[in-house]
């Protein structure tokens, strides 16, 4: 069943507003998505009618807030196929989720243990491990890329043969090249070698249904705001046995069973990893975003964004002076495409497009190791969501051509 995008667009207040008399073509969805009315309404409703702190107090409103928060956890668990709601830890964002693993699981590792990353990684899946290396003197190894940017799995096999790797931390979908990584193969290889796998699903979560149990992945991290939810809430999924074996991350209220002058006993999952008052409303808002996606039809959404992505790549590939980064074929690609335009710096290009209400991202997209591999310092990225249309892509292409005329005329 194909979607009626005009009906979907009407549910996004951000898309209705004209800027300088022009509608916004928002094509920066890999950075963050816009929010549908039902998510905005749920946030308002929580603060106006249910606002109380959770897990505390016996008054009925506190219970209502706790129940709504836990309901959101159940929605997330079911959304990614987790075995138990308590396998879902609410964090601030995917970055914090990865930091939680690097701090907590990382601190259980011995000196010289190996952490394997890929050159595609976002800095959020690089820096926490470099920091762990500073604390613990672990060995960081890199899955190399093939010439077109896809992962070179033979380099992973070589690394695993050394039998040092404890964890492979890898993206499920590149936030620059749109490359979907071979997760099933990597997880099988890792488990065979006795290593765990963390997937940075910040991008993948928006473009593909994920079932953590079928994948048999050990940790998975994503942010709510890239799937039409509010900022301020992220998710860490972990296998129960692993999360139970890990020391707590942040210390404070709510993460303890008991405290005395000499020490403390951690609470059970998931509270052990949720110190302090969490982003209650945002977690509930994420639950509302999942409800909204399910009401639209998640598979149908993915079909639409995949088709639109292919359309964008096709149009960009025939635009003069423009070079698409990464693989030349669409095979196994999703969500975003990055490119350079001869003679125009990405910041100038996105500035010019932005004045026409066309929003794209410019820069290194928090992937300096990847940009070094590509031999450039910055690129321009176009990324799609369910509310985008072919007309918006066409407007973007026209904008790029106009920028070329401006910069190249003499």
């Amino acid at each position, binding site marked *: 069943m194909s979607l009626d995008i005009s009906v979907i667009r009407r549910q996004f207040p951000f898309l209705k507003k004209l800027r300088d008399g022009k509608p916004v073509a928002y094509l920066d969805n890999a950075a963050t998505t816009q929010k549908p009315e039902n998510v905005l309404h749920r946030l308002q409703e929580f603060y106006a009618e249910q606002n109380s702190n959770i897990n505390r107090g016996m008054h009925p409103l506190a219970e209502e807030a706790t129940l709504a928060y836990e309901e959101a956890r159940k929605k997330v668990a079911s959304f990614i196929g987790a075995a138990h709601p308590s396998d879902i830890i609410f964090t601030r964002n995917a970055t914090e989720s990865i930091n939680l693993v690097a701090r907590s699981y990382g601190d259980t590792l011995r000196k010289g243990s190996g952490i394997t990353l890929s050159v595609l990684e976002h800095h959020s899946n690089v820096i926490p491990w470099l920091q762990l290396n500073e604390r613990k003197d672990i060995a960081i190894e890199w899955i190399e890329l093939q010439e077109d940017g896809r992962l070179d799995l033979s380099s992973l096999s070589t690394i695993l043969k050394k039998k040092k790797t404890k964890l492979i931390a890898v993206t499920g979908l590149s936030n620059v090249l749109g490359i979907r990584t071979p997760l099933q193969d990597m997880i099988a290889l890792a488990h065979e070698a006795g290593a765990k796998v963390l997937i940075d699903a910040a991008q993948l979560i928006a473009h593909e249904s994920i079932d953590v149990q079928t994948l048999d992945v050990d940790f998975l991290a994503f942010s709510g705001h890239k799937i039409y939810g509010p900022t301020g809430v992220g998710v860490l999924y972990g296998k129960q046995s692993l999360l139970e074996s890990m020391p707590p991350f942040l210390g404070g209220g709510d993460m303890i069973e008991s405290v005395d002058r000499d020490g403390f006993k951690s609470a059970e999952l998931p509270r052990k990893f949720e110190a302090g008052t969490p982003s209650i409303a945002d977690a509930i808002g994420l639950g509302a975003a999942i409800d909204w996606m399910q009401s639209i039809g998640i598979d149908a959404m993915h079909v639409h964004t995949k088709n639109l992505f292919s359309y964008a790549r096709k149009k960009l590939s025939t635009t003069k002076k423009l070079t698409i980064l990464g693989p030349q074929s669409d095979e196994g690609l999703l969500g975003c495409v990055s490119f350079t335009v001869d003679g*125009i*710096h*990405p*910041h*100038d290009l996105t*500035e*010019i497009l932005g004045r026409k209400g066309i929003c794209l991202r*410019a*820069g*290194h997209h928090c992937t300096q190791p990847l*940009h070094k591999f590509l031999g*450039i*310092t*910055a690129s321009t990225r176009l990324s799609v969501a369910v509310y985008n249309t072919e007309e918006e892509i066409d407007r973007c292409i026209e904008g790029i051509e106009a920028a070329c005329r*401006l*910069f190249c005329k*003499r």
Partner: protein
Amino acid sequence: MDLYAENILDHFRSPRGKEPLQKPSVEHHEINASCGDALTVQLTIDDEKITGLSWSGTGCAISQAAMSMLSEELSGMSTKDAERMKPDHIKELLGVPVGTRRTKCALLGLHALKNALRKHAKEKPQSWVETVGTEQ
């Protein structure tokens, strides 16, 4: 007025002051980490005067045009005057409204110049906050 006014595009397409110096007194490289723009400034300094300047770099039209315009100003300027040059002066040279998100692009050349002078005087480099100033 548009950010991409003809004078800016002209300096971007035909940058001035890029002829390398044979024996610079000092050479200094600065980058804008957020976008990867990079500038290297060479100065010849005689008797506390800038007698020669050359630059090279890559980046957006604003950073490159601002450096090109700045290079036209500097020849013969005393190092004291160059040290005192304010961010507003660069904005006047550009002659177009430079918003918050492009301020560092516009001031990368000034930042490189200031730190080239400091390097020559054997002083520690100044930070971006000092270059941008408080008038933001």
